[in-house]
């Protein structure tokens, strides 16, 4: 049996989404550069997006009920863009105050 001949199902896409999600979380956890963490954020959001599009797909699922998943994915993309804009401002402000964007330097507030 040729494994490449199997039909692609929703589960395959869910696996891709899960890998993206986990990779994003690992990226956010281990990166010290604020922009690296921001890339992790994008991966996490897009992991969820893959799920939405796969669940909503008419090709993969016969019983799919319209465009809800696609609409959701579009909204998430727009929000991710808005968040990236704010994030860059925050990173710039952080750099102005700390002269670095190493997030491990943020350790003054504790107690």
């Amino acid at each position, binding site marked *: 049996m040729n494994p490449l001949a199997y039909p692609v199902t*929703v589960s395959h896409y*869910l696996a891709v*989404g899960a890998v993206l*999600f986990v990779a*994003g*979380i690992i990226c*956010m956890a281990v990166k010290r550069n*604020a922009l690296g*963490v921001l890339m992790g*954020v994008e991966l*996490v*959001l897009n*992991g*969820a997006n893959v*799920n*939405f599009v*796969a*669940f*909503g797909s008419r090709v993969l*699922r016969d*019983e*799919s*009920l*319209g465009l*809800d*998943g696609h*609409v*959701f994915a579009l*909204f*998430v993309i727009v*929000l991710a863009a*808005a*968040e990236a804009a*704010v*994030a860059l*401002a*925050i*990173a710039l*402000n*952080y750099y*102005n*105050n*700390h002269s670095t964007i190493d*997030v491990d330097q*943020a350790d*003054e*507030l*504790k*107690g």
Partner: protein
Amino acid sequence: MLTDPRTIAWLGPEIVLIAAATGIVVAGAFLRGSAFATMRIIAAVSILAAGAALRVGEANHWMTTETGEWTGPLVCDPLGFLVRHLALFAGLLLTLMLSRGADERDGTETLGLILFLTVGAMIAARANELVLVFLGLELVSIPTYALLYLGRNDRDGSEASAKYFFLSILSSAFFLYGASFLYGIAGTTWITAPEGIASIRDAVSRDPQPFAMLGLALVVAGLGFKLAAVPFHFYAPDVYQGTNHRNAAILAVMPKVAGLAVLIRLVVMGLPGVRNEVWQLALVLSVLTMTVGNVCALWQTDLRRMMAYSSIAHAGYLLIGIAVGAAAVGDPLPYGGVAASVYYLCVYSVATIGLFAALQSLGDGSRRVDSLDHVAGLGVTDPWKAAALAVFLFSLAGIPPLAGFWGKLTLFTTAIGQALRGESSMTPWFLGLALIAVANATIAAAYYLRVVGYLYFRTPPATSADLPSQSGPAGGLAAFLAAFLAAFLVLAIGLHQGPLAEWADRGERGLRALEPPPAAAVRATGPQHADIADRRGSLREPPE
């Protein structure tokens, strides 16, 4: 998909606020300097106008029927009505709280952002659709990032905004990932719907599969961050400490309002198929949250850090109501868990915003109020503000006859009621929850009363040179007015708790009227819901 055209009409208050916010931000770009005072008046008037639109717009629909009706992406019911009022009132207090000093430079942007996040909380308060829920939550979060950035521009401020941003967006991603599984199970993003139309509620009730548990856990993780529930709380102390009073007030109230409303609609009412998991999860989170919050607050000397732990502890109290509400879903007898939670949310929000407004009004250019020592002897030097602070602290501690006492009382009695009247397997859990909550209320009194002790039984610092020089925003008359309004409300609710309690109760009854009747007997006795006395005889098993 069916969408009622009235949906747009019911968005009236939100439209008013969005238009005002956009106008203020755009006009602010052209009018530098003196525009702040005018813009603040415009913002306050637009909030009042939105409140009027809210009353006029919905009055005809359910004021008469009392139960609410299902309308599609936006639910029009008493719970939404109450929470939207709360959001508007919080927005009004925050608008007044802005100070002239440092906020003037970015005053118009700050005003606009506060209006935007008020709209976010209002949308989240009655969204019945995952996309709208997510948009509402994000409309609270994104302005908060910008406000944290605008509020304080030093080392601590930038650290706080970076910490809050990355953790908040991670929580949004958790929520989103969980929501994607709920969508996948149901094939639709509608949370509840009448019989015959697909909804998440139906799909999960029919087939509570592992994916539903996964979705539930991820959604609760995302919302737990908004509520600052343990173990998603660790950002709160650092961020509150690293920002100013106004931002701390926003962080303590707005995400909690939005998060609790979504928790009620999506998790308690939307996932009855996994209700056992929901109440167990909420119960464990509640115990952890209030204990950690109260114990850690005991040895704080920074006022905002102490209030951060206090807000964590109060999230634990709110979760008591969620646990009771979830355990009672599908039960013909409403036990009032959701109502108690919403009531407590109102009481907590007013007291917390008022407390921060009073602290803000104390700063006057030469004086900065950050730590306990800064408020020492205030009862002598500034008796009115000290009295306002004492009212809020007593209310948060739950001393009768203030509002906080009644909030705690209703929460604890619903937990005990659930223990006594619910399924017998729940009894030890809810009894334990009530006992731990009472013990926590006692611990909490210790640190609130310590601040009161500083206010009245310490001598004020000898000279003003002992106080650090002011870099943050100065207070003002408007902040004092906000504190006064909040103190009045705390006293008024405490002495006359009937109307708010009735509204909260109507909120819960409205929610239960939206769900399909659990037993045939109920369907026979009345269109929406019969008297509790009638149903007591026909207690049935909740639907599978």
